[in-house]
């Protein structure tokens, strides 16, 4: 039995163990779950060393000490100082040292998040302003401009009524507000319906992928080569 065949058999067995949860929560399912978790963490640590730390941190330092790379690469050792500050979270006495690195990271993240959100949200606000006058188009009044404007109108109604639904400080006694909030709720329900449909499709794709894997595994096992 080759390593690939063994790996396929183990994969097929684990798939069946995970599927067994559909019948009932059981020990074998939990065993597969813990094994998958352990394997993911182990693989993650190994790949982080192999693909990131070793080529991008350890090897430049090693090369610098062996004279194969410029001496400035040895400065990567300095990264150990801020890196080790994270571990002071484990000490009550030296906890304050960890706040230095935490503060630095929060500052950097907040600055970048601010920029990122501005660049993400502002175009959205701009795109929400759509024309609803069919005469205003470059070609004047056409069937296309009428349909476009109707489409924009539906969008506008959806946008305003959905926002109104979340204005909890607004009194909903007047019929206009009450009906608008109701339309907003319907819009949200349509959106949630679309999301639920997408969820079903994704889950189906997952199941299909596993069934295909099981099918291929059995075929390989029965008809090797």
């Amino acid at each position, binding site marked *: 039995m080759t390593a690939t065949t063994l790996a396929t058999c183990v994969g097929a067995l684990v798939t069946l163990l995970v599927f067994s949860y559909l019948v009932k929560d059981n020990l074998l399912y939990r065993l597969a779950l813990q094994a998958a978790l352990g394997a993911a963490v182990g693989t993650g640590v190994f790949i982080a060393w192999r693909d990131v730390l070793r080529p991008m941190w350890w090897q430049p330092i090693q090369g610098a000490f062996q004279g194969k790379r410029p001496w400035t690469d040895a400065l990567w050792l300095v990264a150990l100082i801020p890196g080790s500050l994270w571990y002071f979270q484990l000490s009550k006495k030296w906890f304050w040292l960890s706040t230095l690195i935490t503060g630095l*990271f929060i500052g950097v993240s907040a600055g970048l998040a601010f920029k990122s959100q501005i660049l993400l949200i502002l175009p*959205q606000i701009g795109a929400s302003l759509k024309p609803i006058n069919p005469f205003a188009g470059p070609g004047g009044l056409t069937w296309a401009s009428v349909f476009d404007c109707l489409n924009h109108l539906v969008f506008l109604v959806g946008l305003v009524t959905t926002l109104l639904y979340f204005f909890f400080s607004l009194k909903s006694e007047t019929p206009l507000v009450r009906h608008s909030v109701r339309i907003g709720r319907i819009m949200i329900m349509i959106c949630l319906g679309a999301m639920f449909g997408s969820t079903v499709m994704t889950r189906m794709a997952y199941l299909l992928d596993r069934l295909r894997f099981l099918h291929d595994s059995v075929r390989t096992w029965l008809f090797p080569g």
Partner: protein
Amino acid sequence: MIRWLARLRSIDRRWLYLATAIALAIPFIVGGRIPMPPTEPFMVTRRLYEAIESCPPNKVVLIDSSWDMGSEAENCAQLECVVRHLCRRRVRFVVVSVGVTQLGPEFAQRVIKKIAKEAGCTYGTDWVNLGFVQAGSDIKVVIENLCRDIHATRPIDVEETPVAKLDLMREVRSIRDVHLVLSITYSPTPDWISLVKGQFGTPVAFGCMTIMSPYYHTFIESGQLCGMLIGNWGAAEYEGLTRQPGKGTELIAFATYGNCMILAAILLGNLGLWAARRSRRQAG
């Protein structure tokens, strides 16, 4: 009869699981195929296709392939169809896995190597896999660094060859050399949109799981995303556009059996609800 129908409302969910599994297993067992009639693809798929078609020869497509076994069910077919198109059109491409999963480069390599070999594309000249870029707590920093200087952000490729020694990478240094960024993962981060499109003006497209697609439609409407592949359905449509049927077309045809099953379950559930109401009315 009505009482029997009312029982449909409270059917044990395990029977439904079993029925769905059997429905999806039918094509594997019987080997039947549902013919897929050619349909007009969704505009988001077509826009991605057109963006790749319009790639000038001096630029490349940057693919962020950050998926592993967790989202292989849909992301694999998406990467396959796009890479097949790129290879056929001889559009050069650079693959990178930013932050999400450390297994990303291995999964991408497995898919691309096979397709590139079939198409006669050479590693280092036609395509490059830069491997995994650790993003830590903030992916924004990595994306911005990649945009400014790819060589400094990832000095070696997936096979640990210095990037500067690869022919293709001598011409590709920053986002200015990139025609399009395509992020294929479970849920692509909107930071690609804000930084790559918002700050540097390079078009961005996504390949995401179907479950995540409603969230990204707003970015299509605003023009922030130039195209999108939605699950296997998107991959199947893309394969239709390139006239190269592959995994997406196969999987979406298989999923039809499951969809029929779900529709039948919805119908039976509603029938059960109607019957329950009717029997209550009759009793009252």
